[in-house]
C-alpha cells in the first residue's frame, strides 16, 4: 500500500500529520513532506495511513 499525494491540491491543513506522523509531515513552510514517496508502506503504518487519507479535508491524499 502507498499514499499518493496531490501536492498542488494540498492546502497545508496538516490533519494527516496528526494521524500518520511517521508517514507525512509539514516542513517549516507548511509544505507537505512525504516519507514514503513512491515506496510501499510497512504493514504497521497502513492503518495510520488510511486514517490520514480519510482526514484530509481537501482530498489531496489517496491510497495506491
Amino acid at each position, binding site marked *: 500500500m502507498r499514499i499518493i499525494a*496531490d501536492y498542488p*491540491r494540498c*492546502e*497545508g*491543513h496538516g*490533519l494527516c*500529520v496528526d494521524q500518520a506522523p511517521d508517514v507525512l509531515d509539514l516542513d517549516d513552510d507548511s509544505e507537505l513532506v512525504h516519507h514514503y514517496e513512491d515506496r510501499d508502506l510497512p504493514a504497521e503504518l497502513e492503518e495510520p495511513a488510511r486514517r490520514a487519507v*480519510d482526514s484530509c*479535508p481537501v*482530498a489531496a491524499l489517496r491510497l495506491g
Partner: protein
Amino acid sequence: MTPRDVVVVGGSTAGTTTVRELRRLGFDGRVVLVDPVDGTHRPPLSKGVLSGDDPTTARIAHDDLDAEVLRATATGLDPGRRRLRTDAGTLGYDALVVATGSHARRLVADARAGEHVLRTLEDALRLRERLASSEHVVVVGAGFLGLEAASAAVRAGARVTVVDPEPPLLRLLGAHLADVLVERCVESGIALVRSGARLLGDPVDAVLLDDATRLPADLVVTCVGDVPATQWLATAGGDAPGGLPIDAAARTAWDGVLAAGDAAAPPGPGGHRRTPYWASAAAQGRVAAATILGVPPEHDVVDPYHWTEVAGTSLKVVGPLPVDGPPDHVVEGDGPARQVVAWSGPTVAAVGLRRPLPRLRRLAADLASL
C-alpha cells in the same frame, strides 16, 4: 449492551466518518450504510472543482468501507420499534445515525431553471460549465460559499456581482477578518452590493434589487444557506427546520438514535444550533461512533475550525467566531492580508499564510493557558 446492528443513514463526511470510526474502535458487528449514491466531499466543490480540478476527488466512494451498502433512500423512522423504512424495505437497528446532511436553500420555491445552487458534485460541474460561457454572473449570498463561487467566476473571466442584505462575512467572522477578505474581493474585481434580491424570469435571467435596479445576468447562483434533510423524519416528529437536536454525545431524544453532520443541531451557548461545516461533521461522526460503543468520546461535537479561500487569499480559523475588534496579538506576518493573528477567545486565524491546523490549535491552547 453493545449494539450488534448499526445503521448509518447518509454516506458523506459525517456518515462515512462514523463507519470508519466504528471499525477503528474495534466494532465487529453489522454496519449498514444507507445512501442511494456515493458521498460527496464538499470542501473541494467550491474551492477546486469550480476551477477545473478533477471532479472524482470530490467523491466519497463507499466500496472501500467495511460496511454493507444499501442503495436506498430513507423514507421514515419508527423510533419506538427501532425500524428504519426505506424505498427498498425496512431495517431494524440497535443504533442508528442520522447523517442525511442538508439541501441547498433556494430563493424560488419551484426549482425554476436558471437558479443555480452549489451543494452537490452535479451542481458544481453544471456551474463550472456555465461559468466558462458567462459574461455577467450574479451571486446571491455573501457568505463563504457565495464568495468562493464569486472568486471562481472572476478567475473564469466573468464580471461578478455579489448581492447580500448583510455586510459580507461580517456575521460569520467579525469585522477585522471580514474587512481583510472583502478588500481582497474588491481588488479582484468582485462588485459587492448590499441589498435584498429577487430572482426574475423563467428561466431566471436577472436579479431585482431593493431599489428596483434590475441586474441582468447570464448566470445566477444563490448561496443562501442550507436546509437540513430531515423531511423523512416528519412522521416521527423529527423534521425540525433547525436540524435534529443532539447532546454532547451526539444522541437525539430518541433511544438508540444519534445524529451527525449538517442535519444535526449540537448544543451551544445559545441553544441547539447547526454547525454545517466540514470539521464539525467529521467530529460528530467520531463522537457518534464512540457513543454507540459506550466509549468516552475523544472530541467535542463542535469543532470550531473554518477555512475558506476568497479572491486568492486563504483563511484558516480555529476557535469561536465571530471575533470582535482588532486582534489582540499579531503572531507573525506582514500586513493584514498575510498574518497569523489571535484574539483572547482564544481564536487564532492564519490569513493568506499557509499554516497547518495543529500549529494553530497549539497557539490557541497556549493562549488559553495564559
